[in-house]
Structures are given as structure tokens and as C-alpha cells.
């Protein structure tokens, strides 16, 4: 589904990704781990198409399409979803309004008719009860005055509504207490499916106690230096990132 080859990317002339390769298939859950500054979030932003990051070398293919040719909104409509580490607040814009616009933009892209307000509300309420969210969320401004946990849960709601084929969740666990973490993880687990791939970008092992990955990759200095199954995450927890850094330079 996602095929990244020898990816190099910079921000403000500083190279962050230095030859990263990764292949993700439908139904798989990959965890990307690594120390601060290793390029985890950059990878997420580059795949989503953030304009501040310049790809200098390499390729990213998504379902056979050259992803780097597409605008961010086109990538989204093609089925890529990024759960933001810091979801932005958009005061005055109703959560339901943004969600409906997003859902309908995707439907239009795939030649489907617009979802009317009635259908939309029904679907939204269904997904919200699945995630244990209060329907009042829909009428609030996008992330306006939300707690950290509410913001992250709102990201998962958007993911549930948009049904992406590839979801990248960037530090979804950061800033969450254990209860919020559990509830977000439950939401993500409910969205696991054979035709959906999920990439979890995380600094800590603890998220992986709740969402079990098929593969774990360790990033250091802009490249994947180790790949393995979930036991790799536990090893990291035990030995710390210095161990990987040494391995990378060795």
C-alpha cells in the first residue's frame, strides 16, 4: 500500500530524513519509534504533504500512485489520514461542519454523492458512541478549549468518519493520562481492519501495550536502523535509545 524508498527530506535546508525506506501493506500495524529529533514526526508530515518539508531524493508510492505529486488534500481524499500530535484549534468553526466538509470532499473525489445532514448526523453519532464520546462534541468549535485527551479523541473520531486506508497517528499517546490513553487505544483498535494500515509514531513503549503492532521500526538520524516485531519495543524500553544510536553508528 505504502512504499517509501530512500527518502531524503529537509526543513529550512536542514536534512532530517536521510535515506529512509519503509513498506507497509494493508492490514498491518507498524510502530515507528526513536529518540527525539530522529525524524519520526517529519516522516508523518512528509507523507501527509506539509509544504515546509522539501523532499530532495527518493520516492513515496501509495497504492501505485506517486504520492509526492499530490497536494495534501488530494492525498487525504486518496485515503491518507494523519492524526496530529498537536491538533489545531479553529475557533468558531463547528466540529460537525469540518467533519461533514471533510467527508463530502472525500466522497466527491470518489464520485459519490454528498452526504446530507441527516445521514451525516446518524453516522457521526454511531461513531461517537463507539468511541464513547459525548455527541455535544459535534457542536463545539474544532478543538476549541478541548483538553489534551479530548483533542486526541477528536482525531480518532475524524479517522473513524473518514475511514482512511492508511492512518498515521503521530504521538497520539503524548500528553494523555492512562485512562485517556486506554480509551484512545480502544478507538484505534476498533478501527483495525484487513484493508486498513496503521502507522503509530511514538516515543514510548506504553502505547504499544494497548495497540499491538505487527512491526516495530527504530529510527535514528533519519533512517530506520532496526526493524523487528513487538519484542523490539520491549528491548528498547529496557536498554534505552542510546543502544540503538550506538548500533546505528557501529
Amino acid at each position, binding site marked *: 500500500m505504502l512504499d517509501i524508498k530512500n527518502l531524503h527530506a529537509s526543513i529550512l535546508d536542514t536534512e532530517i530524513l536521510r535515506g529512509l525506506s519503509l513498506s507497509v501493506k494493508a492490514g498491518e500495524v507498524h510502530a515507528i519509534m526513536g529518540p527525539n529529533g530522529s525524524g519520526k514526526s517529519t516522516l508523518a508530515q512528509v507523507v501527509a504533504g506539509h509544504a515546509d518539508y522539501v523532499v530532495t531524493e527518493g520516492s513515496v508510492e501509495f497504492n501505485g500512485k506517486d504520492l509526492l505529486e499530490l497536494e495534501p488534500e488530494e492525498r487525504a481524499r486518496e485515503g491518507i489520514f494523519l492524526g496530529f500530535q498537536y*491538533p*489545531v484549534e479553529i475557533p468558531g*468553526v463547528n466540529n460537525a461542519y469540518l467533519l461533514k466538509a471533510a467527508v463530502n470532499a472525500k466522497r466527491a473525489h470518489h464520485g459519490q454523492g454528498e452526504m446530507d445532514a441527516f445521514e451525516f448526523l446518524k453516522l457521526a453519532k454511531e461513531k461517537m458512541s463507539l468511541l464513547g464520546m459525548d455527541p455535544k462534541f459535534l457542536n463545539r468549535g474544532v478543538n476549541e478549549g478541548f483538553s489534551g485527551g479530548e483533542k486526541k479523541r477528536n482525531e480518532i473520531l475524524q479517522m473513524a468518519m473518514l475511514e482512511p486506508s492508511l492512518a498515521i497517528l503521530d504521538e497520539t499517546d503524548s500528553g494523555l493520562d492512562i485512562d485517556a490513553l486506554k480509551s484512545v487505544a480502544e478507538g484505534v483498535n476498533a478501527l483495525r481492519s484487513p484493508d486498513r494500515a496503521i502507522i503509530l509514531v511514538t516515543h514510548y513503549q506504553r502505547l504499544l501495550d494497548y495497540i499491538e503492532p505487527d512491526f516495530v521500526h527504530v529510527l535514528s538520524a533519519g533512517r530506520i536502523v532496526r526493524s523487528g516485531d513487538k519484542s523490539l519495543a520491549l528491548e528498547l524500553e529496557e536498554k534505552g535509545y542510546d543502544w540503538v544510536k550506538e548500533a546505528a553508528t557501529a
Partner: protein
Amino acid sequence: MATESEHIESLVNRRYEHGFVTDIESEGLPPGLDESVVRAISALKKEPQFMLEWRLQAYRQWREMQEPEWAHLHYPKIDFEAISYYSAPKSDKDRPKSLDEVDPKLLETYDKLGIPLHERARLAGVAVDAVFDSVSVATTFKDKLSEAGVIFCSFSEAVQNHPELVRKYLGSVVGRRDNFYAALNAAVFSDGSFVYIPKGVRCPMELSTYFRINAANTGQFERTLIVADEGSHVSYLEGCTAPMRDENQLHAAVVELVALEGAEIKYSTVQNWYPGDENGKGGIYNFVTKRGDCRGADSKISWTQVETGSAITWKYPSCILRGENSVGEFYSVAVTNNMQQADTGTKMIHIGRNTRSTIVSKGISAGKAQQSYRGLVRIMPQAEGARNHTQCDSLLIGKNCGAHTFPYMEIRNPSAKVEHEATTSKISADQLFYCRQRGISEEDAVNMIVNGFCKEVFKELPMEFAVEAQALLNVSLEGAVG
């Protein structure tokens, strides 16, 4: 970040849809202003003596007055001798008796503007008075309105047919020498709309006026007077457009509202005068005095404005809350883009006991535009129990524009409750990227954010105009992100 600013700056790329010129024969007075011009205008309008006297006094006072310079606006001095003070479509000589006699080219113009002058008016249920350059060309729905006793006609007709009402109320809210532009207007105004709602009548439809400047080098000076007698109710909308011209054109209008006991006037404006090009060439200079007088107890005047046009805007729709328990409201969305400048706001003068006012001002600046909110809340000593709430929000798009707030409060009664809230925010690259990552295009994202910002004001507009205002806003910021 370089990418962010370039990105957002390219957001500002306006397309003005009403910039066409109608090829119509017009006749007018040569440029320049002296007493003979004032006399000529009055004579052309076949006005009674009291009107001529009133104009001449205004003119003489204007001669003595100084152009105000306190506003946060920068523009070259206006040469009042270079302006023609009267222009009319030629066919006006024998004024049309009905719509069938109106020059088809004029009707075509209003058609292009989407104004429901003809059959469409009946469908829309909106009565329209249209002012083209200096004269009023048609007023629809007269019959239906007169059944209800409502007078809705051009100002010229009102002077001819209802001189007693004109004489009683003209200048009673905005005096001849109120300010420089109001005095100029009083001297040379050529037409406008007149509305009288009799006691206890709820006007059966929305009333509406469209103003259009067509001729070059012409100033437009219209005057609107609305009188709502005891216990009556009226909702009124004005819209404005002008062709694209390289020269600046002056628009100095006066609007006077009088609400007697228990009456309610809702006045909505969608102002889309030509704003000039992206380099600041051309555009309308909009110097307007709008004031409502809540003369009777329990009366209410509500101003709602959506301002997207004009190169320069100088405008402060105000309420004088004279009657006990009277209510004044001001809801405003002002958009300035490219090189536009606006100094706009309101004045709420609390005189009566238990008077209440609400001010909600939303300013949006993009490009290199400068926008100021200037508002005065004055509580007089006798205004026991007066209350005001002011909310003043600015939204910036890009980093070359500016927003300024000048709130003035004069509280002379200790029982007053006055609140002022202000915020300034920016459409950030992060917000746009967030929306785009959800599949929403950049333009849609900007529109969504701007509309969210303006929601409180849009909900005050009559339904059909709220849609129009929203669309207008989207056009004004079109191409803003690219």
C-alpha cells in the same frame, strides 16, 4: 517561515464581479461646486423653497468646515472641485412611470447585479428602490406597500408628495452641519430612499435599496430617511456596487433613522463598492454618516453591516438611545484586502433610563490592508441602569495587514454596566494544513474559517441576504491562498 508567508500572501487575489460599466447616455453638471450647483440640483429636482434654503445653509456651513483627519486612514486630499455633483441617466428627463418605461440597459445592469427589480422581485418578495448614479430609477411593489399605508419611494418623490414628513424629519438625526461629509451631502444630495411606516404597522415585506455608481468622475451623495411611527416594524437592506475605474470616486451618503415609541428598525447593509485593484489604484472613497434615533420609549434600532468593498471606508452607524428602555445594536463584518483601508465602528449614546446596547464587530484583514475599529460608548448622567456589551474581534490573513482598535468609553452614571471584549487572531498555516489534511481545499478552508469567525453577525442578517453576504465574503477573499 518563508514558505508559510508566501503561501498565505498569495491568498489575496481579488476578483471584483460588478466592475462593468453600463453604456448609457447620462447627463450631468460639470465638475465643481459653488452655490449655483446647489441651486441647479434643487431646480432639477423641482424642489420647494424650504429644501433649497436647507441645502444652501448646509453648503455655506460646509465651506467653513475642515475635512476630518483623525481617522486612521491615508489617502491623497480629495479635490472637491474635480467632482461632478450630479449625473443622471438621460432618459430621466421624462421619468419612467412604470418599470416598462425604464431604459432596458438599466434593467440589464440591475439584472447583472442580481437585483430583483422585475418579476423576480415578486418572487423574492422584496421591494426594491434602485439608485443609479444620482437618481432613483424604480421602486417596485408600491401598490402592495401603499395598501399597508407604508410609504417607500425615492427621496425626490417624497419631497414632492410628502413634504410635511420630509420637513419634519429631514436633518433631525444627522443635522446639516453634523460633520464635513454630512454637510456636503446635505448641500448636494440628489436622491435616495424614503420610508415611512405608520403607527402599529408591521411592514409586510423586506424593503431594499441598491445603489450603483456608473458615470466617471461623479460623486454619489444619496440620503436615506426612515421613519418608523409608534409600534411599527421595518426591516431594510441596502446594497452597493460600482464599476472598476482607475480614478477614485467619492461616495458620501447620509442615513437617518427615527424610531418612535415601541417601533423597531432593522437596517442591514451589504456594501461592495469597487475596492480598487491590488496596487491600490481606483476604488470608492466611502465617507458615510449613519445614525438612528430611538426617540420613543421601548424602541429598537439594529444595524447589521457586511462591508467588503471601497478603497477607503469611514463609517460609524450609531444609535442615540433617547427613549427609556430603548435598544441599540451594531453587528458588523468588515473585510479589507489588498490596499483597502477602513476606519469603522459605531457610537452608542445612552440618554434614556435602562437603555441597552450591543456591539459585535468582526474585522478581517488580508493583503496590505489596514483596518481600525473605532467605537464610542457614552453613558449620560440621566441614563440610569444603562448597559453595553462590546465584542470586537480581528482576524488577520498573512502578515502585511494590520488591525487596530480604538474603543472610547465615557461613563457619567455610576449605575452603568459596560463590558468590552477584544481578540485578535490569525489564520495560521497550521490551521490550513490541518483542514487540507482532512481533504478540504485551501480556499474552502479559508472560507470555512472566515465564516466561522463571522457567524455571530451573519445570523443577524435576513436569511436571503445572509447567503448573499457569505458568498460575497468568499469572493472577496478568493484566491487568497494559492
